[in-house]
């Protein structure tokens, strides 16, 4: 068996099923960007430190750069493209980031949005400390953390208002 033999993989991303052929070494982050054309997932450090590539796998945040696409065959993936409503309405988390200027250059933003979406689902009413903890695994090189933490708290408020 050649090591580059392609594997048939069914990825369910943002509710749509994609059948792609990938070599075993293809990272999920690259499969999303190159094979599916979903470039919202950003690739920063590629060894799990920065969190820019964070996506939801069966609803839980994971690093797309630390998963081989072939290993998530048949699982549900949500990328940043899947967070807004079908009509383009921003989610509470996206709206919170918009209102509080929770982004500067925007490179790290997709990872923050997916991480916070899952974080607020688990803990809809975080304390200030918990909001900080929620984003502690993601790096922002513009050091926009103060506004990002405010955005998490605002998103929690918006989420509670919508509930």
């Amino acid at each position, binding site marked *: *068996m*050649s*090591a*580059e*033999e392609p*594997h048939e993989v069914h990825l369910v991303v943002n509710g749509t099923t994609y059948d792609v052929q990938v*070599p*075993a*070494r293809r*990272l999920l982050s*690259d499969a999303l960007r190159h094979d599916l054309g979903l470039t919202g997932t950003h690739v920063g450090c*590629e*060894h*799990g*430190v920065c*969190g820019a590539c*964070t996506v939801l*796998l069966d609803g*839980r*945040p*994971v*690093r797309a*750069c*630390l*998963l*081989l696409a*072939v*290993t998530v065959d048949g699982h549900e993936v949500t990328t940043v493209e899947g967070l807004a409503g079908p009509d383009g309405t921003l989610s509470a988390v996206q709206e919170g980031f918009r209102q509080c200027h929770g982004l500067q250059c925007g490179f790290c933003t997709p990872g923050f949005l997916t*991480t916070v979406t899952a*974080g607020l689902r688990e803990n809809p009413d975080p304390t200030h400390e918990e909001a900080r*903890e929620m984003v*502690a*695994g993601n790096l922002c090189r513009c050091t926009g953390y103060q506004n990002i933490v405010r955005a998490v708290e605002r998103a929690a408020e918006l989420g509670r208002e919508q509930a």
Partner: protein
Amino acid sequence: MKPAPVGYLRPTSLEEACRALADDPDAKVLAGGQSLVPLLSMRLAAPSTLVDINALPGLDGVEVDEAGVRVGALVRHADLLAHDGAARVQPLLRMALSHVAHAPIRNRGTTVGSLVHADAAAEMPAVLALLGGTVEVVSARGTRTVAGADLVVGPLESSLAHDEVATSAWFPALADGQGVGFAEISRRQGDYALCGVAALVRRAAGRVVEARAAYLAVDETPTVVDLLPALDGDPDGDPDEARLAAAADLALASLSPAGDIHATEQYRAHLARVLTVRVLREADDHARRRGQGGAA
């Protein structure tokens, strides 16, 4: 930073997985991959084939009884961290797991995978060694049990043979009178520790009768040091500053902290000293609270 070409197998039975490993000495087991995939991407590891064990049945359970906690090879760190039964029987698991990387990594990474990855900077190998836990290992040749203390033999080197799959780990329950503590210092919470210490203290009849600490990110393997000689004979009161300082001296005598770009040898030794005192006090307090019929 992309992995080199690699083959991929997804066996659906343990026998099939063992056979694949036996047939190919360069094959490697993939579970959560949170330590392995970075090594592949940086091309520090280049196995011929990945044997993905995620489809194997029966490896995703946590079993808790009075004796301890058995953790299947596919249990993610996040699920063990959230497991109230496991935390009740052995509180050190939750204390240490909260320091294992960040939530998105804990969601995929497995505790057993972290153990056999054998990284001396990781929390769980030190915890397993401190508690005297074991790892259950299966190959085409049969089943064996590896003591936590014998698991890590060098940097990223476990005592498992290339054809063996770790199927579960067992952590003993906290015994009567025992207490535990854990602390680590890292540059960002969740990053690799510059130094971490786990401690276990047991009190009986108002005295410390058992005291040891395990060190991570200090030596090339997780090191467990018996600190009872420094605390022995402690009268009824708190272990005093002098005894705790003596325990830290005793620990340092068994450690050879290395320097790197994040911490010099001296700084790492300083951290080991400070954290030893801190976690011994924490473990002793914990033992007292439990001894007085308090909660775990």
